[in-house]
């Protein structure tokens, strides 16, 4: 059984001019210890998915339907109190903005200790010792001094390390990282990605990383879910997805990215464009969500929404015409 199983997840929001179907029928699973990336452009529903798993969607105006089974328990059926016991403990989250997600008036040590005392019932001194240990784990120099510091005394990269330390303090089984490196500079991003790879081996938590950056995906993920307009359009192991993307949207995304080193290989072709705009999620769409921007779209695509089909082993895509390989028996 998978650690996390999301089935027919729908997260809709009530807006003055219609119902925004931010996530509309999402299925995926995460195995214990696995790193899964959810990738897509802004508004595709990837962050809403993360918030839905932790039930951080305000209801109303939002509403979640479907099921989210974590360790066999449906999170959507738990009481608020039971959910609080899971959040930050068995499932924890790292956000994009390390400054706004840390409390500016508490020391770093207090903030790490807080979750430990709350969830694990540690004493003050135990929590403090563990906080130092956690800071050491995430590679912060002089952890004994740093635990007594406030967030504003730390740089952006350090704060993101502290966020990771807080998230990992209770040995979660699942870590959800929402754009964890987007706000950081390239050299700092490299540090944090390196840290996440290293921690994965040492801590063994499953990671769901949410990002728009295909480079980050390639660096850390084992399996990738591509989202578009609130739906999953493709899913595959990372090498497969990058080597032979099946869905025209994924192909378009990869083609629209310039490759570093292109000037050396003489591979300086014009970037591929995906024409048009993402459709409004407030109207119910007949047919394929990508049909309006797809170069291959036919009348069939505009009429009938494609089911997610296995196009090759472990490679799922929602496209009528994506090329199939015989699935090895």
């Amino acid at each position, binding site marked *: 059984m998978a650690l996390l199983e999301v089935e027919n997840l729908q997260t809709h929001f009530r807006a003055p001019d219609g119902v925004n179907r931010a996530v509309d029928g999402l299925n995926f699973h995460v195995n214990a210890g696995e790193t899964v990336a959810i990738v897509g452009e802004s508004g595709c529903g990837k962050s809403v998915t993360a918030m839905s798993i932790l039930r951080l969607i305000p209801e109303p105006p939002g509403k979640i339907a479907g099921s989210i089974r974590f360790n066999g328990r449906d999170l959507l059926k738990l009481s608020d109190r039971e959910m609080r016991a899971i959040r930050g403990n068995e499932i924890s989250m790292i956000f994009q903005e390390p400054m706004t997600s840390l409390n500016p008036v508490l020391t770093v040590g207090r903030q790490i200790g807080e979750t430990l005392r709350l969830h694990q019932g540690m004493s003050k001194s135990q929590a403090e010792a563990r906080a130092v240990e956690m800071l050491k784990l995430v590679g912060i120099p002089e952890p004994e001094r740093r635990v007594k510091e406030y967030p504003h005394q730390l740089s952006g990269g350090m704060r993101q390390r502290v966020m990771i330390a807080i998230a990992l303090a209770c040995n979660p089984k699942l870590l959800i990282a929402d754009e964890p490196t987007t706000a950081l500079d390239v050299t700092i991003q490299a540090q944090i990605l390196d840290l996440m790879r290293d921690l994965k081996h040492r801590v063994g938590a499953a990671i769901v990383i949410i990002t728009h950056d295909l480079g980050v995906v390639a660096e850390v993920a084992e399996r990738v879910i591509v989202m578009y307009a609130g739906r999953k359009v493709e899913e595959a192991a990372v090498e497969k997805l990058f080597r032979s993307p099946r869905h025209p949207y994924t192909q378009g995304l990869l083609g629209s990215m310039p490759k570093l080193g292109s000037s050396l290989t003489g591979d300086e072709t014009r970037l591929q464009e995906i024409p048009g705009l993402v459709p409004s999620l407030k109207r119910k769409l007949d047919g394929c969500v990508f049909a309006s921007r797809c170069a291959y779209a036919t009348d069939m695509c505009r009429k*009938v929404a494609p089911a997610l089909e296995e196009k090759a082993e472990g490679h799922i895509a929602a496209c009528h015409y994506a090329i199939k390989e015989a699935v090895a028996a």
Partner: protein
Amino acid sequence: MSSASVLNPADVPQSAIKAAAPMPDIMPPVKARKGLWGYMYRNPSIAIGGTIVLLMVLMAIFAPLLWTVDPTALAPARRTREPSALYWFGTDMLGRDVYSRVVYGARVSLIVGFAVAVLASAIGLTIGLVSGFVRWADSIVMRVMDGMMSIPPILLAIALMALTRGSVGNVIIAITIAEVPRVSRLVRGVVLSLREQPYVDAAVSCGTRTPVIIWRHILPNTVAPMTVQATYICASAMIVESILSFIGAGTPPIIPSWGNIMAEGRALWQVKPYIVFFPALFLSITVLAVNLLGDGLRDALDPRMAKRI
């Protein structure tokens, strides 16, 4: 990229097409309400606040038609009557009809509120723009404003009233002077943040002269926060006017205003509370309505602004 990238719809037979299961609606559809009613429905604060303010304005304008008598007519024989079918809100210690006085009193409150809102906004806007754009003037102007802000607006208004004769015009001037520092600070802040906007930098690069930048790029964008601020000034001016009239430093007693009606009822508060109660109720409702309108406008005009104020 490998061959997997080349799709060919013609290769796929109709029979191979599999449709995805449709997803149900999980919440009832939103009825799109259009026009004025839709706007009211989405912004209940504006609807409620606006309606009450409008009613008060109509009441003030059409006061003579609203079954009132001369609010200044004395009738010592009918002093301090309880509210009844004849005297809806009773009569005061000089026998004047409290209902008529309250209805006419709305005129003073509303005129003072609106006049101060308009004047203080206009003056504050000018001062704020000058100090936001003229660097050397900024520190001088702002220190003067700081000095004025260190005096409570009511005390400042009382002090100014002490220098002049009590009249509605003087009340308006006194309250305006007391309100200007707050407005100019707000405008200066808005101007300084607008000046940092990339579109202003772009306009400079496009060769736009400073006066045109102020007129075309800064001013129109101060309208939303200024409108919101003006409603708050209006509410605050109504209260200050009542206080001034209440302590006898405001509207002359010959013109009924909610403040001086309450002042006259004060002595009989213990035995005849209705003389104070009715003007106080009208004042509270009006101020509440204006503030509600302000909150609604703030939310509707600029959601980001809502967090800043």
